[in-house]
């Protein structure tokens, strides 16, 4: 499983980002940069990540800056999958 590739697919599917998701790098900003990441968008993405990767995201993990960039989110997912 390649976390980064899977994450790009989830972002593309759930936030309707299309090709923009594929061009993301570790430094690509998420929260505060993607208009699609309003509160409902974040809920949608968290639910999709939980289902796809098979773990639960705790409340305090949402409050951390997990969603700052594509890299921080990928690291978070990888750590949960480890």
């Amino acid at each position, binding site marked *: 499983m390649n976390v980064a590739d899977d994450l790009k697919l989830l972002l593309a599917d759930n936030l*309707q980002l299309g090709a923009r998701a594929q061009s993301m790098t570790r430094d690509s900003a998420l929260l*505060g*940069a993607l208009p699609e990441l*309003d509160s*409902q968008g974040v809920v949608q993405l968290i639910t999709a990540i939980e289902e796809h990767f098979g773990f639960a995201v705790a409340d305090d993990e949402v409050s951390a800056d997990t*969603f*700052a960039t594509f890299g921080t989110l990928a690291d978070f997912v990888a750590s949960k999958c480890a």
Partner: protein
Amino acid sequence: MSAPLQKLVTAAIDHRRVCASAATVALAIAVLAFARAGAQGMDVPGCGTLVNAYGPYDYTNPADVRDHLPIVEQFHFDRGVDALKGHAQSGPQSLGGDLAYTLRAFPNHHRALDAMGRYQLRSKQAPAPGARLTAECYFERAMAFAPRDGVVHMVYGIYLARKGDLDAALDRYLEALQMTPESTELHYNLGLLYADMKRYDDARDQAWIAYGSGFPLLGLRNKLVRAGQWRDPPPEPAPGATPDAGATDAPAAEDGSTSAPSSSGGAESQAESTEPEPATPPTDAVPAEAKPVTEEP
């Protein structure tokens, strides 16, 4: 169904559960029939009627949720539908129909409204395939059915903002603010919208309220930082300190921030002159908002 009728129906059902005499059952049936007759008059201009073979039921009514939501969600709104992939049994070809069914049974189903909006944006068709009506229609129907449900207005605002109709989104958010002024999620989304509109003072006011109440997502703060518009909120005055002429207490500051948007021309100067203190978090605010969700039943 009007709000008074809704209360009558709810009271009748609750009463029936406590005292299931023949008389109370008859009364409940009579009230339900009266309510259904009232619903028959509830045509939503250009968007059909709210009358439905099953329902319509209120997503914010605990009795409706308990008695009718599970079966609707089981067959028409599972995780696959919410994710716009299609129901586990009926598949992606029934996505529009499943969303439409859910919103006919529960016109103000918050997640289904959001999903319908996303589905239409994704499909680039209005109505989206199988949906019968446009997403805008489903929102209009929800507002007609549950006019005091502030979350409907917020979710409509989110849809409009995603669509790029920022002025219309602001109208919905401000309407929602009248109904749910304590919703930190609403303040957060309103702040995002103000930032998109480059009304940074208003955006910052909303950020301070949201974060002062424990809202966890840092997107609004990040957005303001990137625009060079973030400032920390002013420190709260020490207990017992005499407020100076420019100081405001928390309730007054919140009032100022929520009324500022209505006078767009003066919003910036007002925001500068009455910088709000962060709102005092309600005791249950952090757990309820820690994982941001709308008011699920």
